[in-house]
């Protein structure tokens, strides 16, 4: 056990593995966490030690937040930034401010790793669906497709597929706290293989009486760029982008330097050049042009030009464009629409 104790002490000094649950208007916190070397932002809550809840989480998303909270392996802890843990049904969570966040994370992480803190799961301990012992094998039902093994039904009956092969369709709702998606976005997909056959896109709107968020002190385009870079596996460059995003007086040269490193056929464009072009009002059709716009805007706001807020997009129109895409393509496409989707979450656009 002495070995484990020593390991725990070393582990307590490791970068804090953080899963970030983003509410509305939390870009600044995300940029802080990405830019800080004391923190590792994980893509899956399973890899995290601490869950960070940032921004305004509407009441409609509280149940989903609880499920993400439980997916962080125990022992776990939650830190809520500028919010009220009780409102989120996470009674054990720590509240802190954006300024003190990383220091608090280091402290909480050490406490979790050394066994001094553990937030209990908030979801049910047993599957609410009663399935055990029903059916000849305990699968919860009769017949080949009638069972509900482990409380979950068999796949939906096959429907007509895009290429005429009607295989099972996975019906999933992805989001609103999946790190690969823009914040507060729920994607309801019918997945056949790795292709999206049906897509419905929903944003979770802020609560009616939610406090108006203060103007974001970061450049949302650069935050979106950092997320896009992380999604194509360029985590180190994402750090650079996030650092630039939170530097209020960033220099044009720095933005240009970042652009030189990623805007090349073998850089970020290796991931985005191949994405399908989009036909949406107010959005550049070419996926690469969309992040080039973010860089251009970041360079111009640095020298004091007026900052253009992104136009909201109609989610059903975006969803229509996603049909038929491979999962990875769809994720990257949504990431290139991050500012627009954030805008439409607050002020939904009407379908044209």
């Amino acid at each position: 056990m002495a070995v484990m104790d020593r390991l725990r002490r070393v582990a307590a000094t490791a970068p804090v593995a953080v899963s970030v649950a983003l509410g509305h208007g939390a870009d600044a916190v995300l940029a802080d966490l990405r830019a800080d070397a004391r923190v590792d932002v994980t893509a899956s809550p399973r890899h995290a030690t601490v869950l960070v809840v940032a921004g305004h989480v509407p009441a409609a998303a509280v149940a989903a937040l609880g499920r993400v909270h439980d997916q962080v392996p125990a022992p776990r802890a939650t830190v809520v930034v500028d919010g009220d843990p009780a409102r989120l049904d996470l009674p054990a969570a720590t509240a802190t401010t954006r300024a003190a966040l990383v220091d608090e994370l280091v402290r909480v992480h050490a406490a979790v790793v050394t066994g001094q803190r553990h937030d209990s799961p908030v979801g049910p301990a047993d599957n609410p669906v009663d399935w055990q012992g029903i059916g000849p094998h305990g699968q919860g039902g009769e017949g080949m497709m009638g069972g509900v093994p482990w409380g979950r039904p068999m796949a939906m009956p096959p429907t007509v597929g895009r290429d005429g092969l009607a295989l099972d369709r996975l019906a999933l709702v992805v989001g609103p706290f999946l790190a690969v998606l823009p914040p507060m976005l729920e994607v309801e997909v019918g997945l056949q293989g790795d292709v999206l056959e049906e897509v419905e896109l929903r944003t979770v709107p802020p609560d009616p009486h939610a406090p108006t968020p203060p103007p974001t002190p970061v450049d949302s385009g650069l935050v979106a760029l950092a997320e896009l870079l992380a999604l194509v596996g360029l985590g180190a460059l994402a750090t650079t982008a996030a650092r630039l995003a939170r530097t209020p007086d960033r220099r044009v040269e720095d933005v240009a330097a970042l652009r030189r490193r990623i805007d090349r056929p073998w850089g970020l464009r290796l991931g985005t050049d191949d994405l399908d072009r989009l036909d949406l009002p107010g959005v550049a059709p070419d996926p690469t042009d969309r992040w080039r716009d973010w860089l251009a805007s970041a360079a111009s706001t640095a020298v004091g030009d007026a900052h253009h807020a992104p136009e909201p997009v109609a989610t059903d129109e975006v969803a229509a464009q996603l049909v038929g895409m491979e999962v990875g393509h769809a994720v990257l496409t949504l990431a290139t629409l991050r500012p627009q989707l954030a805008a439409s979450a607050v002020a939904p656009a009407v379908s044209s």
Partner: protein
Amino acid sequence: MTGLAVDIAFWTFAVAAAWFGWRVFRTDSMVRATFCLLASFLNVGAIMVLLLAEYLGVAMFFMMSVEMVVMAIFMVAFMMNPAGLNPMEMVHQPRAAIAVGIGAAVGLGVVAVVADLPPAALLDEAGTIRALGNELMGASMLLMEVVGVTLVATMVGAVVLSSASGRYGSADTGSVPPLLDPDDPDSRPDLVSADGEGDAHAGHGGHGGHGGHG
């Protein structure tokens, strides 16, 4: 390795090959079944190495792994309930099958024991690969080219049969959805018949080919 070690290794591999071969048909999970078959192949490959057919044995590993990965893809694609979450028996005539299987094994076993094959040991244990190469470049040259033609025919046949739309129109014209319950002919879900929409682009190579329809 001495003769005894080789014997022990042989029996280990032989029993493992047979056991995995049996598990193939006794597991609920299709993925497990497929990779049990792979394990059976790997054990036979190991026996081949013990038989000094070094190249063939190692090539078994290589060839059969690829084949079983492809097999797994198709198993999971076409077997309902591929993980066996909801256990079921998908067999018919089980008794007859067992009888025939045992009969085949016993019959061949008797032949193996009774037949008096004249022993002739390997002349050149170190040169088996080179001999195979010279055979393929020499006497079996024609065989190799015939194999080439066969494989091309296989590839073309596989593409023609499996692709969504051939030059004679969509392959799924007139398709019907399956029965939800195999015993109940009325359980066919009432779905829109496949009209081939959405795969008109599948006949053109080279591009991702995703429109906004589907």
